[in-house]
C-alpha cells in the first residue's frame, strides 16, 4: 500500500515537472513573439485599410480612433468603426468586421465609406466559399470586389443594388449567385446604416480598448 502511494506520487511529480517545463517553454516563446505578432496584425490590417483610403488623404491614426457599434444587420457580434480624418475633419469610416451570410458560412469583410456616403471600397477578409466558384470575391482571384469602389446609394439607385440576375447592376459568377448576392445586399445595408448614423459615427468619442481588434 505504501509502495503504491509512493509510485503514484512519483508519477504525479514527473507529470507535474513536465507540465511546468512545457508551460515555461510556451511562456518564453510568447514573451519573445507577442510584440511582433501584434505588429504583424496591425500592419496586415492597415495594408487593407490603405487600399481603400489613400494614406496621404488622412493625417490621423484610424487604429487609435475607433468605436464599437452594435448592428445585428451588419455582423452577429460587435462591429468596429475606424475613423479616418484630415485636420480633424471626417474623411471616411472603415467598418470591420462586417459579415455577409455566405453560402457555407459568414463572409467577413471590411467596408470603407467616405464622409459623403461614397464607398471607398470593400475587401473580403476571410470566407469559406467554394473554391473555384464563390472564391472570386477574393481580390487575388478576380476584380469583382473592386467594382464597389465609388458606388453609393444614389449610384446606382437603391432598387438597382442587386446582382444582374435579380435586375440589378452587379455581376454574378457563373455557378455561384448566392455569394455575390449576399455581399451586395450586405454592402447596401452598411451604406444605409452609415446614412442613418453618420453624425454619431464621427462624433462619438474613441473608446480605449485592450482587446485585439483585428480580423
Amino acid at each position: 500500500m505504501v509502495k503504491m502511494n509512493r509510485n503514484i506520487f512519483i508519477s504525479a511529480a514527473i507529470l507535474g515537472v513536465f507540465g511546468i517545463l512545457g508551460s515555461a517553454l510556451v511562456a518564453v516563446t510568447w514573451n519573445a513573439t507577442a510584440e511582433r505578432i501584434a505588429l504583424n496584425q496591425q500592419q496586415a490590417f492597415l495594408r487593407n485599410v490603405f487600399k481603400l483610403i489613400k494614406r496621404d488623404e488622412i493625417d490621423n491614426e484610424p487604429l487609435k480612433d475607433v468605436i464599437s457599434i452594435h448592428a445585428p444587420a451588419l455582423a452577429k457580434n460587435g462591429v468596429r468603426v475606424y475613423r479616418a480624418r484630415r485636420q480633424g475633419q471626417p474623411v471616411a469610416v472603415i467598418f470591420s468586421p462586417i459579415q455577409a451570410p455566405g453560402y457555407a458560412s459568414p463572409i467577413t469583410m471590411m467596408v470603407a465609406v467616405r464622409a459623403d456616403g461614397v464607398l471607398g471600397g470593400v475587401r473580403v477578409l476571410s470566407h469559406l466559399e467554394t473554391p473555384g466558384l464563390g472564391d472570386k470575391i477574393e481580390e487575388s482571384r478576380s476584380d469583382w470586389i473592386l467594382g464597389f469602389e465609388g458606388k453609393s446609394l444614389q449610384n446606382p439607385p437603391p432598387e438597382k443594388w442587386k446582382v444582374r440576375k435579380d435586375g440589378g447592376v452587379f455581376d454574378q459568377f457563373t455557378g455561384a449567385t448566392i455569394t455575390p448576392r449576399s455581399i451586395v445586399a450586405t454592402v447596401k445595408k452598411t451604406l444605409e446604416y452609415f446614412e442613418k448614423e453618420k453624425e454619431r459615427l464621427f462624433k462619438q468619442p474613441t473608446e480605449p480598448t485592450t482587446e485585439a481588434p483585428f480580423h
Partner: protein
Amino acid sequence: MSMSYPEIVKNGLWNNNQALVALLGLCPLLAVSNTLVNGLGLGLATTLVLILSNGTISFIRNWVRQEVRLPVFVLVIASFVTAVELAMNAWFHDLHKILGIFIPLIVTNCTIVGRAEAFASRNPVPQSMIDGLSMGAGFTLVLMTLGGLREFIGQGTILSGIHLMFGEAAMSLSFSMGDDFHGLILAILPPGAFFGLGLLIALKQIIDKRNAQRAAATDSQPASEPATAEG
C-alpha cells in the same frame, strides 16, 4: 539493435513513409495539400516539431515512467507545437493566416506521438532526431507532391503564393497557365485530395513491386553475376 543512419533515412522517406505507408496524419495531409506552398509550409512546421519532440523524448526516455509516458509525450509535443505556432505567427504571418487551424492541429498528428512511442522512447538522441527529420521530410514531400498536383490540375498554377514564404523576390518562381485556364475544380475540393493520395499510394506500390521483382530476378541467378549482389 539500433538502426544505422542510412536505414533511418530510407525508412522515413520511403519504406515506412508516414503518409503513404503508415497513413498517419491524414487530416492535415488532405486538408492542406491544396497548393504546393501550403504543403511545404505545414510540412516544414511538422518536421520541426518532429525533430524537437523526438530529440526531447529520447533525452528523457530513461526518467519517464512507463505509466505516465503518454501524458508526458503529449505535454512535450503540445508545448513544442504552441511554440512553433507562435514563431510562425511572428515571422511568417501571412502563411500562418492561410494554414490557420492546421498548425495547432499538428498536436493531433498521429505521426508525432507515433514516432515518440515507436522510435524516440527506445533510441539514443542523435538517431531519434534523424528519425524525426526523415519522417518529417517524407511527410513534407508527399504533402508537396499532392499539393503541386492538385494546384496544377485545379487552378493551373505551380508554386502560387510562394512569396508568402520567401518574400516578393520569389514571386517569379511561380508559374501560371494564365487566367483562361479552366481547371478541374474537383482537384482543389476535398475529394481531389483522396483521389490524389490514392494515386500516389498506387504509384509507390507499383515501384516497390517492380523493385522486388528485379531483386528476385537477380537472386535467382547469383552464380552468373555475383557482382550485382553488391550495393
